């Protein structure tokens, strides 16, 4: 991959080209993300590639703060969005970049897109969120697992026995009813993902199907990345969004 970020210099990013591949799997809770990441990892390792997993909220730097904040439900939307960005930056610099530099494939179970969508649904401007994550590395491939809300609901209930407070967006006060809030929230998120996806160049994969069918399609997207020589690129590569809006004068 190239050492390209989404437009902002990342201090300390190595100058020499990074040889590993960065593959991102995005999708709502219940879209089969974790299952797909596990299947993909297995397959890549059998193919002979070193694979490193990463995901959100796995950095030790602020994991406790995030957990505590979620328990208390007291943080403002901007603070929460920034707290997640610390977690992401820490993993990017301390895990993702070193792994890629060592030639490994990094499989990211969600990336900046989920964080951006969540922040925007909670009132942040798209422009603010996009620029905040300008330091993120451009992945080689972003797979977006797309499933209908009813399917997400059934998978969530069969997995956890109930609906999660945050995955139902209860902090947004869309409805006091958990069930209704879940649908309202997932609807907003998926609208936001549709925008992020078109801006950033996602590969949408129909995740309403059986995991094996999903995996077969994802493998077809991943395989070209490892073709030696001129190819080595996905048929539809992630892209840097166009900056349509002129830079606003910072208000601070």
């Amino acid at each position, binding site marked *: 991959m190239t050492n390209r970020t989404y437009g902002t210099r990342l201090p300390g990013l190595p100058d020499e080209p990074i040889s590993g591949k960065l593959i991102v799997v995005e999708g709502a809770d219940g879209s089969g993300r974790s299952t797909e990441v596990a299947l993909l990892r297995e397959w890549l390792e059998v193919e002979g590639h070193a694979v490193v997993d990463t995901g959100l909220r796995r950095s030790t*730097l602020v994991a406790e*703060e995030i957990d505590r904040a979620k328990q208390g439900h007291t*943080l*403002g939307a901007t603070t929460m969005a920034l707290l997640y*960005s610390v977690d992401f*930056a820490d993993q990017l610099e301390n895990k993702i970049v070193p792994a890629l530099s060592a030639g490994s494939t990094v499989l990211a179970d969600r990336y900046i897109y989920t964080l951006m969508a969540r922040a925007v649904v909670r009132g942040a401007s798209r422009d*603010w969120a996009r620029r*905040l994550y300008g*330091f993120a590395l451009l992945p080689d491939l972003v797979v977006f697992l797309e499933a209908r809300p009813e399917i997400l609901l059934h998978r969530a209930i069969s997995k956890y026995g109930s609906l999660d407070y945050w995955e139902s967006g209860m902090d947004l006060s869309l409805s006091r009813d958990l069930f209704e809030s879940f649908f309202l929230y997932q609807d907003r998120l998926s609208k936001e993902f549709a925008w992020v996806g078109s801006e950033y160049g996602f590969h949408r994969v129909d995740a309403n199907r059986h995991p094996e069918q999903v995996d077969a399609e994802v493998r077809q997207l991943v395989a070209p990345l490892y073709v030696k020589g001129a190819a080595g690129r996905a048929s539809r590569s992630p892209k840097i969004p166009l900056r349509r809006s002129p830079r606003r004068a910072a208000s*601070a």
Partner: protein
Amino acid sequence: MIPEAPSPTHGFPGRLFVFEGLDGSGKSTQAALLGKWLQSQGYRVFFTEWNSSELTSETIRRGKKKNLLTPTTFSLLHATDFADRFERKILPPLRAGYVVVCDRYAYTAFVRDAARGCDPAWVRNIYSFAPRPDRVFYFRVPVAVTLKRKIASRLKINYYEAGMDLGLSDELHDSYERFQTRLKQEYERMAKSDGFTVIDSSRSVETIQAELRAHVRPILENFPTGERLMHDE
């Protein structure tokens, strides 16, 4: 009752005064004195300092102790801390129409992060939720003076404060001086671009305080005092 005339600078009914400058420039002393005076004049005053939020201060301390932070995580962690402080402590009184006095504001992050090599436009965007203050007082002081004060106070210079993470020098005092010089250059540049009111901090405490009060008085002309906020006349 909320004052009817919003600030021409940020549009909120309250007023926002910010104190910026290097460590040891005397700004904290002056900010506290100004706050006290404003209170004595009957204004409702809220006073906040950088790093007074509880949310991430533990992490910042831990991260700093173990020297775990990169320029990017250092910047984002402080932004998180500031956002928490802003959403909780600065914005509500500003909206309610009080006078808010801040010992350090987003500008501290702008200079510090720029000195660490972060993209200035990126940092500005992150803090774009923070409105422009009614007035920023920048305390100008020679770096040598701050170092002398630092040594006299017997406070230990910490790793990040000295910019040791930048590898400017292996020696703590030398690194501190070089790093503070960078910060000062950024402050001086910003004093022009962002229209700071420059305060020459080499003068006596009393002289400086009198000057600050003279700057603040016209901004608070016709601004309601606490009494008038809490009762009808």
